[in-house]
């Protein structure tokens, strides 16, 4: 399978820029869907918030191919513009992930794996949460693990990213039977069971956007 793909060996600045732009498009398209998911267990604003955040991200995105600087800009804009808990959580994700990448214009597969790890560690700390609590992490952690597993088996970047996106999607769906333990949904207790977590959904969308953007750039 992996051999059939003439995928890239690195992820470049323009690919990251494309990822960010794709994410903005995806959140514009899924704004209503995300807010619908958020209405039974949250305050029905996750779609609006992410859309507003990524619109602002596009406006403020700096010139150049410094990947660290691009991701840090995403972080700072989301912190200011998202409004809800997703602001500091996604802000932390991009900020922590960007730190080792400052000055880099292209990322190796190992850099990307490191990005996932740092980003996830930041989110865990900020949200005082972990897998199984019906949060973003239920999509992000399986994605990161799948990326590493595929890499360990010799899969190239694109294959690893596709595996990550698939794992994120499964992880997102796995939040449906979970009882929320963090955020406003946790106030609902057992009534949060049966609803897909909006945060896990937006995280899946972001991981899928990365995979799509890299695939499109390498076509």
């Amino acid at each position: 399978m992996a051999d059939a793909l003439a995928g890239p060996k690195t992820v470049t600045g323009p690919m990251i820029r494309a990822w960010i732009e794709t994410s903005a498009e995806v959140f514009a398209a899924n704004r209503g869907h995300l807010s619908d998911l958020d209405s039974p267990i949250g305050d029905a604003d996750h779609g609006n918030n992410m859309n507003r955040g990524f619109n602002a991200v596009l406006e403020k995105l700096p010139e150049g191919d410094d990947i660290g600087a691009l991701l840090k800009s995403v972080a700072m804009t989301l912190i200011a513009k998202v409004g809800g808990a997703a602001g500091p959580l996604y802000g932390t994700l991009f900020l922590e992930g960007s730190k080792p990448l400052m000055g880099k214009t292209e990322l190796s597969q190992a850099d990307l794996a490191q990005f996932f790890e740092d980003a996830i560690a930041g989110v865990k700390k900020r949200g005082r949460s972990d897998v199984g609590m019906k949060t973003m992490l239920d999509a992000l952690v399986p994605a990161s693990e799948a990326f590493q597993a595929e890499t360990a088996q010799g899969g190239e970047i694109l294959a690893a990213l596709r595996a990550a996106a698939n794992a994120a999607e499964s992880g997102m769906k796995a939040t449906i039977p979970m009882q929320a333990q963090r955020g406003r949904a946790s106030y609902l207790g057992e009534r949060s069971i049966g609803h897909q977590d909006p945060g896990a959904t937006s995280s899946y969308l972001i991981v899928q956007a990365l995979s799509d953007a890299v695939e499109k750039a390498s076509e």
Partner: protein
Amino acid sequence: MIGIVIVSHSRKLSDGLKDVADAMTQVPIPIASAGGVDDPDHPLGTDGIRVLDAIRDVMSDDGVLVFADIGSAKLNAEMAMDLLEPEEQTKVQFCDAPLVEGVLAAAVQIAAGSSLEDAMREARQAVPAPTEAVKQQQDTAQTGGVSREFTIRNPLGLHARPAASLVSAMNAFSGDIRLRNVTKGKTSVNAKSINGVMLSEVARNDRILMVADPAEAEAVFAAIDQLIQENFGEDGIAPVKPEPIRKPVPQPRPPRDVSAGTLTGLSIARGFALGPIRHVRSALPEVEPVSISDPDAEIERFKMALSAAETEINGALSAAGERISAYDRKIFDAHISYLHDPDIIETVLGRISKQHICAEAIWRQVVWDLSRTYAALQDPLLQARAGDVIDVGLRVLRLLMGQGDATDHAAEPSILAYEELRPSDVLTLNQETVLGICAATGGTTSHAAILASALNIPVVFALGDALAAVADGQQVLLDGAAAKITIAPDASAIETMQNERKIWQDHVARAEAVRDLPAETLDGHKVRVAANMASVDELGVIMRSGAQEVGLLRTEFLYMRRDTAPGEDEQYDIYRSIVAGLKGKPLTVRTADIGGDKPVSYLDRPAEANPNLGWRGLRYSLAVPELFETQLAAILRASAHGPVRIMFPLVSTVDEVKAAKQRVQSVMDQLRTRALPFDEGLEIGIMIEVPAAAEMADLIAPEVDFFSIGTNDLTQYVMAADRANPKLKDLFDPFNPAVLRMIAKSIKAAHDADIWIGMCGAMAGSPIAAPILLGLGLDEFSMTPADIAEFKLTLRGLSLSECRNLSARVLGLDTARSVREQASLFLGRHKAMAKTAATP
């Protein structure tokens, strides 16, 4: 100045809250509002960058407190704090308090100049508690039980001994019984757990809610009613009060060396000892957690250790016999109840079963955690219980580890040194071979201090960590009164000590011999010696002290540490019980001197820049007539049961005295209407402590029946020297001729008007002051009970005529130092003449 940042989802809310906070503080404090997001369509949310900017706007070296409303606002506040530079981060604290209450409480604290920590603590305490109705519902819903509320009336509240009585009564029932301190807003605890009950900090007049199984609720409540009626067994047995920190015995002494070879601490019991130090290690040892394979056997072993510990305590108690009073025995009853505490036992058993770790390690951890919990409480009485917990913990640990008696004292007479003395250490002491006791830590209110002070050997606590460094077997000199040990004393120090000990022992013997004799001079002049009293607990000590009366009952204790002012009946009960306990000796009740340095939460008093010159004493009483009249009515009613006097504090003018007397008259009228008896001829007097009152004493005297001089306040007002300021301690000296002249003037004014005059300040108990005050004509000397025998001994060696010459002379001196020198010389000449037997 400390800054505040308000993080809210709503800009309107954060702006509005800032406005309210600004309006509440008279000094402007830096407050930044960081609410909402920049999106006109969806303005609700938080903006981490706005928070970051806000923090920097109000940043100074004094620090910044950040408050947030709900979940994601808190996340964004923390995000912003993470974005600060490291040196900025050290100055910023997130305060997890309810937004509105927290910000307002912090703003007020900051405006008043509080530290960041204090402002934060106040803000956190602004948490509104769940309403009583909600809690009550929870209590009964949890257990399916029946609830009833009780008010605890015994003076000590549910501290060690009364708590043990309650727990023991509750353990006679089979169902769950819960207790919750409603007054203090505590959570519900198992009423069969001694620690649950004690950690509820139930003080006198606290209300508790008891929840019991419906099947036995009536019986449970009846048992509690009975305990309350019996005052939890506190009646009739007075606690031995810890010795106050003693002043050095006022004997001529050679100057003390303060070389590196001495350690100084807190005096628990006076006396001298010379001998080798013997360390008794009694801190909880570290225990290595060892895995076990058979938890059931381990549990059995643990239970056997508990029951062996109980047998040991009972055995030691019966061996101690008469040495331990009935009241103090109850300390050990509390120890035994720890061994039966279901909360502790269940925790230990549960962990043995789950973790498969040896009982020693688990027991040590549980005991340690519990002792830390006690140590962290605010009430010093409860803090001191940490020592009791460790004491029991050590005993069980020793038995579990199969070790013999830890206090295996050598036969050679020695001075025992402890890290901290525990009650059972005292119980197992061999009095033949223990010359004295010293400890690195410990306070005067611990059970161990109470027990040790009755041993008739010198005891000194709080000598510090350096004590541990003194080698075993090292010769030391222990001076209980000076609270000092001298390490490796030389021959001359030993000789000095032996002389001092001899003098001191003779002196103690002579003082004891005159304790109950009249306070009479060689030439037959009699004065009255009285005791100062500040709580009901002191009654027993006062009755044994040789006091003829109580010259000052401070009543502030009635108003402290509670949520509402004490009512008339409650106060009446207390005054009446004191009157009854005094068995005919007069009781002088001073009306409450509530002022700036004695804050009372439920009285809405303004903060004062200068509380000593502020709205306190009689000034405050006259302005708050309900509080004042309630107390007057209670005192007057108590006067129907024995001799009682009323005394007003901090009087400045004749008008104040007249107004206070009118209040008394009006309360008397009300009592007559209510057909309640009181002593129509009860004496009314005032404190002389404001220079204006001393100066006008001739015009005030005809208005009252007596004066009592308060030397502490009089000295600080005459000398304009704050008594709490160590830099002014030479000025704050009642022996200053200026103060003595004020005293002389007051005494003369009293006698010219044919009324008596006493003194209830610290000076009254000072032997050096005795000849001067006697010479000036003072009629009543009221002091700490512990000083009375000593005072009588001094007095009985003096003659009034010579004292008059002395006092006339010292009024003409120009310094406090020369007054003290003259008085010391005078005493030295008369000391040998003390009468030790009754006047023939």
